[in-house]
């Protein structure tokens, strides 16, 4: 049976064109860009071209792109690299309550090292509260790190407005654009962003590669030390096939974004409406309109998310109940808690993230099986009101 993948935020298969462009770099073109003979030049050119490819996805200049091993490293480098380097300027860091763990945990670490951290709350749609940002930022603030769009609830943040507030106090703005990139247009110049994290796999590129955009002139220090690759900001022999693959993925993303987003948005809306219309006491999490084109997050009262995912898995559908990274703990997602859901509702949320392989029939299939699954689990649940069971 062909499985239906509706968990693209956890992992994506690589675009066939990306695999194809990577292949020669595994074998004949295996040069190290630090060497001076022919294969070394080839590798060096490949990286520089790749910088261009990634830069163009976000309106950056190619010399503003540094390759890393993934978005977690990019977030760590941006946050810790800027904080330490600018320690003499101030010690206050700002973020939000709906960030990824790869932003939260470096901030917590810095908190232990003497930095002050403030987490801006969000409203019930997951939108960062601009008034609180204004009140919280001060002359001691050196960095604000906010997510461009949250991959779990899909809400797109008012980055340009945040950027204005942050720059009015001469702080740096770092943006985690992992979930947003390739889904919605991003322009680091128009939004005046100082640092921005990207992940290759989220663009249908290979895993194990990421990038950090660093605006020219930004004061930052490395978090990994060694041979001085990537202008000294990321030492280590370059992962050329991965870098070339990421760039190709970024190019394909740029080219297809308009059409693909329109296509996904239609599927997304069918799925949302289909669920809300046929299943009682189901509700959309996240923003109804300022929403990633591929994101559907629904909570079903009285049942728990994992049992939903397991039931869907048994019928060939891959879905998620939140960030893959939080599924290691039994805690409900901090993002769902941040938008004000009580624990039991947060536990009952189901996340579908759509992607390139999904077609209308996938949506129809899910809509055909989900009501039965929800009904069965509600029947098992002691929380379900009798009236609801008899009803359907």
């Amino acid at each position, binding site marked *: 049976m062909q499985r239906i993948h509706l968990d693209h935020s956890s992992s994506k298969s690589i675009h066939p064109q990306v695999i194809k462009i990577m292949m020669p770099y595994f074998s004949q073109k295996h040069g190290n860009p630090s060497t001076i003979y022919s294969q070394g030049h080839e590798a060096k050119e490949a990286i520089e071209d790749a910088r261009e490819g990634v830069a163009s996805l976000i309106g950056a200049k190619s010399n503003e792109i540094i390759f890393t091993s993934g978005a977690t490293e990019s977030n760590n480098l941006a946050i810790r690299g800027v904080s330490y380097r600018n320690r003499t300027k101030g010690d206050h860091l700002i973020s939000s309550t709906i960030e990824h763990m790869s932003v939260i945990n470096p901030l917590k670490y810095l908190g232990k090292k003497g930095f002050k951290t403030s987490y801006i709350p969000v409203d019930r749609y997951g939108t960062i509260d601009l008034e609180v940002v204004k009140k919280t930022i001060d002359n001691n603030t050196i960095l604000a790190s906010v997510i461009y769009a949250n991959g779990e609830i899909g809400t797109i943040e008012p980055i340009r407005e945040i950027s204005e507030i942050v720059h009015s106090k001469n702080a740096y703005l770092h943006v985690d654009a992992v979930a947003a990139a390739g889904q919605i247009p991003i322009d680091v110049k128009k939004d005046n962003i100082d640092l921005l994290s990207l992940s290759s796999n989220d663009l249908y590129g290979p895993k194990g590669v990421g990038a950090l955009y660093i605006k020219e002139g930004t004061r930052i220090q490395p978090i990994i030390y060694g041979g001085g690759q990537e202008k000294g900001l990321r030492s280590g022999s370059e992962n050329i096939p991965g870098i070339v693959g990421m760039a190709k993925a970024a190019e394909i993303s740029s080219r297809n974004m308009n059409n693909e987003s329109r296509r996904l948005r239609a599927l997304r809306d069918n799925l949302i409406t289909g669920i809300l219309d046929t299943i009682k006491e189901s509700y959309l999490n996240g923003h109804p309109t300022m929403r990633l084109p591929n994101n559907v997050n629904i909570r079903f009262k009285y049942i728990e998310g994992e*049992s939903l995912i397991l039931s869907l898995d048994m019928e060939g559908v891959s879905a998620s109940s939140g960030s893959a990274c939080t599924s290691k*703990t039994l805690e409900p997602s901090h993002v769902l808690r941040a938008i004000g859901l009580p624990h039991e509702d947060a536990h009952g949320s189901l996340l579908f993230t759509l992607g390139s392989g999904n077609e209308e029939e996938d949506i129809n299939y899910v809509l055909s099986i989900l009501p039965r699954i929800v009904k069965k689990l509600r029947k*098992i649940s*002691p929380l379900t009101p009798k009236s609801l069971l008899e009803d359907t």
Partner: protein
Amino acid sequence: MYSDKVLEHFRNPQNMGEIPNADGVGTVGNPVCGDLMTIYIKIKDNRIDDIKFKTFGCGAAIATSSMTTVLAKGKTIEEAMKITRKDVANQLGGLPPVKMHCSNLAAEGLHKAIEDYQKKVEKK
């Protein structure tokens, strides 16, 4: 992640439901943690004559509830009180470590239901 046995019990939970005029009822867990189970028992001649459960929770919570009722059914009260979480997990072919603690509460639910029954008997 889950054993075949767990998936089987999740897919076809045994003894799911309520017993309207149960002799004992036991509820454990907390929806805040994402797990809540209620066990209903009917006692006849000191034996668990009928047993049913309702569970809000993950796959492990539902499967352990189902397995607990299977293990308890027909046992004497004394035998049923000896059923442990570990027995339930073993009968299911093991549980993922992260699930051992929170989602494997059904044995406690069973014990609570029995205690509830015993209290009611004493009162009579």
